[in-house]
């Protein structure tokens, strides 16, 4: 059987439709493994994986670490804040030092776009991008699309709106590429200042009115406002943003049909989404987190399966 068409997972851009479907089918079997009393399989017992995080993370790091451990890989963790990076070591030096200790795969999150691609050209290990700046976050997009497929049976033909800070969001870009590849219709919605000018060239619709966008869609993916990436003020105040683009129960109940609500986390409750929406039965936010482990197991398994 053919494997993935790529040696690294740097972005959704490198994956074709067959790759994504192979990942989903493999994730299905891992999901059933995760529902057994013994949730562990020995596949990656001779593989060592380094999780290198140059940026804060809770869900993604834990999810990758659990996925690695469920596959029986040996895991080392590295957080930039407590490392020699603060003493001036370069990225390649840091990673080569880690690889000298016989590491086979690197899972990396980095604040700069393209860090994973750069690294893949300079070191021997297989690289999995766990988020690079405002560029891509491939495993998040895969688990989002996988969750939509689980809910509706298929992604093709579904209408998905991504609401919020599209400009600074790696989740948005990866989601757009992944959903389009699978044949979904995609719309982005947010303040004009937070929608990139040429986003239409990716084949997505643009809408600035939340109610119109929600009435159009089957699924709404509500993104967080990435204040840490905003160097200037893009809108007058968070309060105004919430009034115009926040999703609350009143809006949700006023729609013609029952839509599904997603959020990649971390949630700023009361900003982009209110608590009663996040915890409602229309929300699949915790299913997304659960699926994250299965998707990451599938990605690591398929990459590691390529002969070294």
């Amino acid at each position, binding site marked *: 059987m053919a494997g993935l068409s790529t040696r690294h997972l740097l972005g959704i851009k490198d994956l074709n439709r067959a790759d994504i479907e192979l990942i989903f089918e493999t994730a299905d079997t891992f999901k*059933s493994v995760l529902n057994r009393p013994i949730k562990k399989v020995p596949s990656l017992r001779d593989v060592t994986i380094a999780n290198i995080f140059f940026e804060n993370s809770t869900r993604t790091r834990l999810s990758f670490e659990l996925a690695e451990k469920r596959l029986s890989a040996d895991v080392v963790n590295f957080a930039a804040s407590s490392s020699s990076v603060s003493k001036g070591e370069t990225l390649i030096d840091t990673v080569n030092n880690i690889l000298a200790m016989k590491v086979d795969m690197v899972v990396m999150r980095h604040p700069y776009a393209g860090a994973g691609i750069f690294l893949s050209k300079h070191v021997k290990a297989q690289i999995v991008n766990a988020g690079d700046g405002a560029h891509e976050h491939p495993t998040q997009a895969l688990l989002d699309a996988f969750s939509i497929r689980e809910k509706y049976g298929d992604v093709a033909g579904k209408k998905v709106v991504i609401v919020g800070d599209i400009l600074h969001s790696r989740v948005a870009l990866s989601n757009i590429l992944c959903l389009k590849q699978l044949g979904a219709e995609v719309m982005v919605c947010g303040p004009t200042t937070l929608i990139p000018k040429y986003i239409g060239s990716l084949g997505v619709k643009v809408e600035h009115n939340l109610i119109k966008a929600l009435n159009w869609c089957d699924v709404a993916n509500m993104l967080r406002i990435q204040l840490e990436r905003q160097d200037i003020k893009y809108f007058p105040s968070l309060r105004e943003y919430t009034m115009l683009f926040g999703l609350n129960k009143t809006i949700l109940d006023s729609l013609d049909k029952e839509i599904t609500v997603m959020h990649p986390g971390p949630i700023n409750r009361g900003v982009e989404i209110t608590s009663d929406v996040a915890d409602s039965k229309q929300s699949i936010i915790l299913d997304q987190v659960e699926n994250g482990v299965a998707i990451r197991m599938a990605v690591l398994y398929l990459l590691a399966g390529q002969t070294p």
Partner: protein
Amino acid sequence: MQNLTLLDGQKFQITIQRLCRQLIENHDDFSQSVLIGIQPRGIYLAKRVAEELRKILPGKSILQGDLDITFYRDDFRRRESQLVPNQTKIDFIIEGKKVIMMDDVLWTGRTIRAAMDAMQAFGRPEKVELLALVDRRYSRHIPVSADYVGIEVDSIASQKVVVSWKDTDGEDKIVLVSEAAE
């Protein structure tokens, strides 16, 4: 390519029925026993045996599941082609039960080793037995032997044994396939 048919038609059916009778000798009414077919090709054998047992023992419940061993194989990262998993479907508890594992062809024995590992995720069985429709003798890589055997075949490594099933392939047949001499 040369094909030699080892078993087909009526004789194939008689072999399956003989295996069923042997199983009944040791497992009575199957209230404490379960059948597990190994993916991908052992599941057809397990389905067929379960079907025949239900005919012989009407009214008895015969539990049968599919076990995928992909994640437990010992050749991961050692082969060119990707190992893609199949579905595991075991809707019952095997803790304390007598398990009869089934595969169509027993060759090196490595699949069976992986299956024993994979099965542990579903509990500790009281006893495990192995049923193989075809036993390719003298080719084991590890010390495994079957408790119930359909037919024994002497073959060389370059040959292949292919089992087809009436329900899925249109015909019950066991064929020994040899590459033609250069």
